[in-house]
């Protein structure tokens, strides 16, 4: 693994204006992604963890060039993605592809498998019919489907097979960077491992870099080298996966780890589960965003934004009380 950063995100903000409200009233906005800074190195699998509605998918869209950010920059292969226009932008973005959560809605029900997988090739151009068909067969075999499936439609396949088709389409033009937006959460548990193994095998064979979005901590633990924990649009804790799992500092990370179901019946350690709902991102809490649900929250947490604290080399946390953990560790 080289240390070169493939994707670098700098102070990325994505706000959505809220429609409605009274005239002359201060315009409200949803702070979907707020001040995110991180980099994804060549060849690694980067985990992005968070509850539903915390801005994971918005962040992924912003990185992919689908959602222009309010401010901040996205660098891909050293180039500022949003500074490029027209052809250059499309050419650079073609090196990034995405695998979607719901495999059915990501495949056009009117297309057959050949059309679906060869679509990126058709769009780029430069392939003859025969080349496209040959390449599609090759891709199908790579993802574990067969040549007979070439002229079938998405409705003929099971969830896992549909996801395989989605993966084949995503890798058809040899992208360098693949965003997996909860690729297994809509599938049966028995299929999870198959799809994850397929993704890992393809990464090894094709040398791709993954941004892996998930709310499943077990999956992230097993495949990601670095991770970032997001809450309400902000990064709570980030660093190498094993360090975070070994020494979770932020109360939110701890709560998430506690919420993982354990089959181990004998392990009767006390679990602290978070109470309440995610607050509205339209009017996020001042200070630390987690303060409404944090059991350690003090007056300081409610008024002051927490500093970034270096827990260990490479492992950071945004919490007022992280300093204490540093000495503990």
């Amino acid at each position, binding site marked *: 693994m080289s240390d070169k950063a493939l994707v670098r995100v700098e102070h990325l903000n994505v706000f959505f204006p809220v429609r409605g409200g009274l005239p002359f009233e201060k315009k409200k906005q949803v702070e979907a992604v707020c001040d995110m800074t991180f980099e994804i190195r060549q060849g690694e699998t980067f985990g992005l963890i968070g509850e539903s509605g915390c801005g994971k998918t918005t962040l992924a869209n912003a990185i992919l060039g689908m959602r222009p950010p309010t401010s901040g920059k996205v660098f891909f292969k050293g180039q500022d993605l949003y500074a490029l226009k027209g052809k250059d932008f*499309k050419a650079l973005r073609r090196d990034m592809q995405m695998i*979607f959560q*719901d495999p059915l809605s*990501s495949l056009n029900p009117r297309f057959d498998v050949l059309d679906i997988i060869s*679509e990126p090739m*058709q769009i780029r151009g*430069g392939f003859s019919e025969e080349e496209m068909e040959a390449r599609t067969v090759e891709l199908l075999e790579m993802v574990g489907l067969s040549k007979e499936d070439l002229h079938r439609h998405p409705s003929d396949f099971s969830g896992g097979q549909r996801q395989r088709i989605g993966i084949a389409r995503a890798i058809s033009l040899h992208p360098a960077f693949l965003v997996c937006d909860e690729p297994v959460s809509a599938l049966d548990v028995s299929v999870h491992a198959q799809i994850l193994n397929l993704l890992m095998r393809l990464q090894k064979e094709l040398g791709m870099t993954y941004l892996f979005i998930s709310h499943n901590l077990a999956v992230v633990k097993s495949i990601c080298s670095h991770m970032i924990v997001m809450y309400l649009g902000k990064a709570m804790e980030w660093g190498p996966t094993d360090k975070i799992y070994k020494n979770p500092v932020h109360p939110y990370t701890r709560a998430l780890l506690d919420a993982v179901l354990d089959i181990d019946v004998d392990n009767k350690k006390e679990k602290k589960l978070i109470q309440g709902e995610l607050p509205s991102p339209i009017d996020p809490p001042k200070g630390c965003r987690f303060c409404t649900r944090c059991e350690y929250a003090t007056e300081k947490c409610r008024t002051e934004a927490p500093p970034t604290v270096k827990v260990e080399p490479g492992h950071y946390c945004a919490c007022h009380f992280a300093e204490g953990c540093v000495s503990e560790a």
Partner: protein
Amino acid sequence: MSTKNKCPFGKRVLKLLKGIAGIFIKIWKHPRGRVGLIILLVLAFCAVFAPLITRYDPYDVTARCEKGLRPSWEHPLGTTISTGQDIFSMLIYGARVSLAVGCITGLCIACLGCLMGILAGYVGGWVDTLIMRIVDVMLVIPTLPLTIVLTNLFGKSYFMIVFIFTLFGWVGLARVVRSQVLVIKNSNYIKAAELAGAGTWRIMTRHILPGVSHLVIMSTCLTSAGIMVAEAGLSFLGLGDPTAISWGKMLAEVQSGGAMLFGYWWWIAAPGIGIFLAVFSLMRIGMALEEIFNPRMKRVSSGYKLFKSLNSSYIQEVFDSMNDEDRPETDPGREGGQA
């Protein structure tokens, strides 16, 4: 696109033809659709091969017969009292004008409505706002009086009638298409295509247009039927093309020629049955298509649908019902009274 990418144009045309053939086969397999298809094909055959079916040419002013003849083997429906034209030949030739005006207007409305709906739905932003405001304005303009005024202003021709009906007919379809496009637009396969670098045109033609095609095909059938009735009404009022022979114009002559006075009931019935058969067949096909595309519609009685079809709000209704499965069935009689 590079030149190396051979566009399989012939293949795509073949695929399209196959799709159209598939739709016809489906209508044929549908019991009520088959009736409509047979009637429409017979009418279309009459229109196309009119000179082979009748010996008389009603447009030929030099070849007039004796006036006011009763039905005989020579003249199956007699001749007109005023001009001595053969009524059967008028009926057959009238199919040409009536069907052509109805179907051409239906197709024009389908194209324009589809284009506007897709533009509004997919491009969004100010394009959407502009088109939808135009639609709002168009919807509240009463069409018939305006048509009368415009035909008087710009001359009475069928081109004008097609133009005016198209101008005011596309709005309903555009609204329906737009709402469907908004659904398709948010699906992930559009996003995947955008990620792969697909342009707006490609996404509109390859992904969105096939997704709304069933709406457009259905509305073409139903609006064609409505336009035929409207054209007959205009011609009856003397606002159609004065040189052409259409079923509506025949009805106008029935009235001016005094058919009621002499008891020439066959003269009155002939154009009426022509209009009825054309509209009935198109309605049947439209309803069959609707049941093919949306099997849930089968529950609603066809009488209700027929009455609703005469309202322009009909198509909107159909798609409302898609979202709202538990809509109570309305009494057909009451609806008929309102229609």
